[in-house]
């Protein structure tokens, strides 16, 4: 009897420890963001002004769109390497549609092209059974080449009348609706839950009745669709499309999501809040460092070291989990 209680208390102690650890790893990204904000406010004195917060919102907007969708694929333990190239390609298509058809046409074109690319990615992996990494990598090469050959000169311009499309209010409203849809879909529908189960173990997911192929296809389709939306906003923000549009988006998304406290191996730790939080951290970091005068060589070094630090403290280390 007494041994039993001893075991029990020991166990509950461990539980507490685990719970504490878990709470800590959840809290770290928030704490990190808070520290960054306080630090930059002290360093620059005018970090928390309305105009700077608007600048941060503007800069993080497309990344937020892309990374929230990226979470869907990442939850399954895969990565969509073509995400950035897809956004760039959609940006080109939207710009061309706006120029040669009608400004309004850019919206459906961007969304449909993005969706199709995402569906092809999903199709290649589910029906053709191609490895995710290779399929997306090849898609990236193809889209990059297509983008480069569609652009004459180093960039193409959207019609000037569209410059006034990008207003703060529109972005805000769209952002809130988009976030609400993504959060609900990931957290409160079967889709998100099943994708997470898939990330833990595809076999277990299959046995519990998840249609694995359908879900993976859907995850890539969502990401593709979001890449299209991101491409559209890219166009509005940069006034058109360039050969470099979206070039760094894939890495930015991965870095943001990890900064936000989610593991790229997906599974149970997947959370849509990581995308929001990570986007904020990355954008604040870029903005604050330049404002504080560290925009030269040290910028990337500090980013890399911080990145390493964040993953070091926020990753759960379970010796039984297979890491690749």
């Amino acid at each position, binding site marked *: 009897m007494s041994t039993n209680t001893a075991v029990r208390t020991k166990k509950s102690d461990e539980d507490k420890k685990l719970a504490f650890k878990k709470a800590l790893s959840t809290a770290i990204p928030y704490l990190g963001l808070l520290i960054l904000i306080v630090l930059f406010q002290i360093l620059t004195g005018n970090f928390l002004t309305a105009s700077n917060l608007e600048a941060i919102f503007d800069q993080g907007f497309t990344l937020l769109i892309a990374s929230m969708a990226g979470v869907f694929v990442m939850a399954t333990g895969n990565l969509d390497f073509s995400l950035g190239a897809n956004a760039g390609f959609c940006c080109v298509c939207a710009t061309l549609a706006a120029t040669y058809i009608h400004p309004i046409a850019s919206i459906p074109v961007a969304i449909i092209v993005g969706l199709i690319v995402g569906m092809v990615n999903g199709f290649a992996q589910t029906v053709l059974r191609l490895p995710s990494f290779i399929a997306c990598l090849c898609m990236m090469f193809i889209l990059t080449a297509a983008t480069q050959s569609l652009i004459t000169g180093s960039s193409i311009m959207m019609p000037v009348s569209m410059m006034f499309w990008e207003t703060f209010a529109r972005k805000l409203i769209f952002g809130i609706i988009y976030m609400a849809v993504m959060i609900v879909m990931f957290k409160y529908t079967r889709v998100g839950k099943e994708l997470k189960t898939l990330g833990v173990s595809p076999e277990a997911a299959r046995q519990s009745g998840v249609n694995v192929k359908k879900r993976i296809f859907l995850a890539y389709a969502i990401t593709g669709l979001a890449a299209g939306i991101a491409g559209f906003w890219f166009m509005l923000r940069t006034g058109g499309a360039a050969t470099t549009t979206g070039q760094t988006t894939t890495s930015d998304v991965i870095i943001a999501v990890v900064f936000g406290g989610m593991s790229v191996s997906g599974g149970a730790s997947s959370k849509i809040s990581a995308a929001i939080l990570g986007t904020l951290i990355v954008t604040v970091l870029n903005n604050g460092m330049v404002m504080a005068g560290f925009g030269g060589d040290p*910028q990337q070094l500090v980013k890399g070291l911080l990145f390493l630090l964040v993953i070091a403290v926020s990753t759960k280390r379970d010796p039984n989990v297979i890491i690749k």
Partner: protein
Amino acid sequence: MNNKALNIVKRVLLAIALPAIVYLILGIIRPDIYFSFNTLIMQLTQTMKLTLVGWAMLFGMSVGLFDFSVGSRIILAGLVGIHMSQFMGVIGFVLGVVVTSLILAGITGAAFAGLRIPSIITGYAMLLIFESIATIYQKKFTVIVTDNIAIFGKAPGIYVLTIVAFVLIYVVFNNTKFGYQIKAIGGNEAVARSMGIKAVQLKLLTYIVGGAFLSIAALVEVGYTGSVTAKTSMQSMQSCFTPMMGVMIGMNLASCNPVVGSFIGSFCISIVGSGLVALGIESRLQNVVVGLFLLVFLGLKGNSDRLSHLFSRKKKEAVNIN
């Protein structure tokens, strides 16, 4: 006995078939170029450069690790090596490259194993750090490649290094416990762990052994181009995709060993690159062509059961309900 020999011949033929067909097609289009000994030698040299980087990644990729920091490590090791060569000549160069490469591989591996984070993320973090260190380093010290370093990048230096690397990697991969454990983990990690293989330590080791082979690749790379330039904003990542595709082809060539396969895969890639030039097509489409090729190849391979099923179904249609 007879059967065994026949089997070996069959396997060798199968392995060579792929590059041979690609080469033959190009030869038919431009016989003046491709049916020449010099062209073949040049292609082999380019292949060796790709393969050496590929071999450095082969260990990691065999156990499912993708490391994007490889390009930045070559640049940093190359810079330190060239800098050292200004004091100690060729020996300084070799020492600088090998030691730096091993240290960087050790750091990357330690980050991976110590922090238990996925290799792609480790690669990203290290890439950011190594790129900026290389930029700052290049600013501090002007490094100029001297002529004697070029021996590593051209015949016979590159041949010697490739053969040495080949022998080493072949032995390590096929005849050591390390190589055997790599295959076990690459096959099925959970089973391998239950057999008592320490997966994390082994993966750390793949980084370090990979780093040793990467130092050979860096020696060749610096000698081959005659210069090293730091890159920022993750642009060094681009350089690892091509060798990576070579390894992927190699790992999927069922008829031969991945070590040899990587070479064959890289050979196909460099022929495609040169073929595009010979046809007057822009050479930057190389990755697109290779990518599509890889997709078709893997698609056929991954679906061979279904394809054969499709062909045999016609006969069985009457009986088969499925």
